[in-house]
């Protein structure tokens, strides 16, 4: 049992230290998130009431795109240098190692986006009541994005120009998360109870946590052979 946990944490630690040595890659999705949100007032209107009406949706869509952008990195580098094949050859169950990689990936891409979101809420004049559900919802939602995205990333890992294809594959799957995420914020802004919506979002996250690592591990076995 110790070796199982050992392998799990070793993968997380390895991925985190690799990410720390490429800080530029770490910041890029974050800047992308910031720039996309900056384009909104420029493209539509700087008027606070109009911005506030759009803020939940715009922040969620930008967060979705930012995590999508980073998804390519989940398996790509490890595939290129051969360490992914080593992971697959190891005696530990592959889904566990894939889960470790997903968690590490979320920690370096999803979590910064979550922590950054209140700032963007502020510049889009999101009403005060919306901040907590935005943080909570994005924390759950980006986890689902990473989990489901891992399946797509695994399928396209060996393909040239897989990144556009990857977005095509996973974006339709993100629809429910986007709907529940934005409406949690919207309900809070409108002074309604958002607990139920957040519970659904949490259920989707738990469900993805249960199934996505298996699907991604299976997809990896197929994707590598392609």
């Amino acid at each position, binding site marked *: 049992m110790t070796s199982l946990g050992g392998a799990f944490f070793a993968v997380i630690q390895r991925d985190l230290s690799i990410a720390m040595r490429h800080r530029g890659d770490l910041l890029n999705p974050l800047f992308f998130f910031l720039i996309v949100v900056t384009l909104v007032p420029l493209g539509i209107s700087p008027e606070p009431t109009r911005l506030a009406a759009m803020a939940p949706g715009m922040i969620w869509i930008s967060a979705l795109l930012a995590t999508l952008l980073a998804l390519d990195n989940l398996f790509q580098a490890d595939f290129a240098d051969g360490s992914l094949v080593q992971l697959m050859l190891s005696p530990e169950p592959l889904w566990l190692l894939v889960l470790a990689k997903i968690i590490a990936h979320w920690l370096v891409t999803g979590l910064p986006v979550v922590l950054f979101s209140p700032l963007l809420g502020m510049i889009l004049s999101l009403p005060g009541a919306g901040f907590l559900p935005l943080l909570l919802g994005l924390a759950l939602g980006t986890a689902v994005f990473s989990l489901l995205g891992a*399946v797509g990333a695994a399928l*396209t890992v060996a393909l040239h120009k897989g990144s556009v294809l990857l977005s095509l*594959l996973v974006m339709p799957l993100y629809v429910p998360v986007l709907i529940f995420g934005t409406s949690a914020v919207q309900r809070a802004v409108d002074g309604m109870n958002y607990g139920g919506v957040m519970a659904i979002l949490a259920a989707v996250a738990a469900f993805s946590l249960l199934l996505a690592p298996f699907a991604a591990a299976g997809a990896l076995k197929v994707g590598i052979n*392609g």
Partner: protein
Amino acid sequence: MWQWFHKLGSPRWFYHLSSKFLPWLALASVVLIVTGVVWGLAFAPQDARQGNSFRIIYIHVPASFLALAGYYVMAAAGAVGMIWKIKLADMVMVAAAPLGAALTFIALFTGAIWGKPTWGTYWIWDARITSMLVLLFLYIGIIALSRSFSTRETSARACAILALVGTVNIPIIYKSVDWWYTLHQPATIKLTGAPSMHPDMFKPLLVMILGFYCFYALVLLLNTRTEILQRERRTTWVKELAAGK
């Protein structure tokens, strides 16, 4: 039973068996669709409010039925192919994807044409329309994925995984879009399909739905047979077939 099961998995056996079904399916689809079209377009009574424009229902509804059913056919075939490693199921799955996408597109397109005289607009963000659009995107993703692998075996496996993930997601997507629509429902347009259709209108629709099912089965068989021939083109039986023996 198991012997039968394994026999079914043999592409060659399936190719020969299916050639016996083809004429019957073709006959059934032609008879049913021609009957349904003539009955629906010429003899069914006019709708009290929509006039003649409602008649597009005879294409729209069967296409929508099969667009959704087609996804489950594809996912089920993919699952069978993955679990029992049956090559034939993989081929059915690959054959079902473009067919389903085409039907989804027809459903959306006829819906848009129908929407213009009925609601005065080609497109509204209604729950059902939006769900269909997402379904089309799911199909497009699978087709795009299937085109990007160099070997057909790998491509089928990859698509099967994606189709299964999509299948788990479809009910969630449908529920969420439904719920999203009730939040944002525009008050001016009320969408009630056809809660109480007159039997004279409903009977031709039933014929059309049956006809579309036969047509779907026919095209699926033809697509699968093409896929079989392409994949097995190096085997002796296909070469003999091509040589006309």
